[in-house]
């Protein structure tokens, strides 16, 4: 019996990352720009998606993948109700979507007809940050009632973001939310991060977000 050391040097999430790479190729070939939309439970992910659909239709065809830990179709039903294709992925209790789950979701969508694919991740500020799905950008919906300390408590998710949305600004008069403190935390984790303050209730700020997204979609089409 001999003992040998075997060099490995392999990322622990390598298997996930390889599938993510394939997902990205599939999306690129179909010409679908995709967003990994993350947030804590109740931040307004689905409301934000509905507002985005409203703002961009009819010029942009949007598909949605809904990730949930429980076998419910509440969110997918809301998207289907406004006439956009949505598939629901049940993670079977897992706290995040991974690339393999998204791959299964992509196979159920008419990707060639979709300009923008929004993947609504499981409501969670920790686990989704660790798993690349193969989407093009990471977006977080933070919300005023969650409190202004969230960047300080969940730094990892903020570090990996391409764009941040602060939802429920209509509640600012009622909640002790120090915007400066919040933004300083974000700045320390992700300097210069593109940020939009919106209210899905009143529609405030949605136009600015939609304009930015139109720009990203146009840029993606040119590549």
């Amino acid at each position, binding site marked *: 019996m001999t003992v040998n*050391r*075997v060099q490995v*040097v*392999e990322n*622990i*999430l390598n*298997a996930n990352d390889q599938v993510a790479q394939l997902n990205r190729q599939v999306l690129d070939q179909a010409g679908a720009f995709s967003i990994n939309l993350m947030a804590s439970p109740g931040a307004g992910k689905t409301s934000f998606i509905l507002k985005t659909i409203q703002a961009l239709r009819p010029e942009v065809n949007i598909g949605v993948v809904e990730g949930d830990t429980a076998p419910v179709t509440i969110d997918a039903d809301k998207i289907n109700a406004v006439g956009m294709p949505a598939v629901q992925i049940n993670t079977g209790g*897992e706290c995040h979507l991974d690339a393999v789950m998204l791959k299964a979701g992509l196979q159920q969508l008419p990707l060639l007809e979709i300009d923008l694919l929004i993947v609504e991740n499981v409501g969670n500020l920790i686990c989704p940050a660790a*798993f690349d799905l193969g989407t093009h950008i990471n977006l977080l919906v933070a919300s005023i009632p969650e409190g202004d300390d969230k960047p300080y408590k969940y730094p990892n998710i903020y570090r990996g973001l391409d764009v941040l949305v602060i939802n429920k600004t209509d509640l600012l008069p009622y909640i002790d939310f120090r915007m400066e403190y919040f933004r300083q935390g974000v*700045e320390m984790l992700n300097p210069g991060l593109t940020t939009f303050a919106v209210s899905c209730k009143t529609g405030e700020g949605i136009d600015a977000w939609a304009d930015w997204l139109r720009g990203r979609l146009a840029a993606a089409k040119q590549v």
Partner: protein
Amino acid sequence: MHELAVTESILEIATRHAQQAEAARVTDIYLVIGQLSSIVDDSVQFYWDSMAENTICQGAQLHFKRIQARMRCQDCQGEFELASQLEPCPACGSYRLTVAAGDEFFMESIEVEKV
């Protein structure tokens, strides 16, 4: 808490490399985990003990090498060790920081027994 998925990956990677090396048994697994990777060692160990049972990795010892987080300041180009999660550059007070080290998350090597 995605340690379950992480532990599954550890088992898959170690098993694949052990088979390639035509090993009879894996005795040790060396993991390198940065301070900024939100992984709880005890939790991985907990899943590992039951998951590795009846595999080539049964009884293998997990070793966690933790890497101290280091930040690089975009303004003064200095580097410093991160004591807590969020703090400005101690040299110039800037908040424009990028991660220089501490987000590692990989398997460095395994030790195996060959017949």
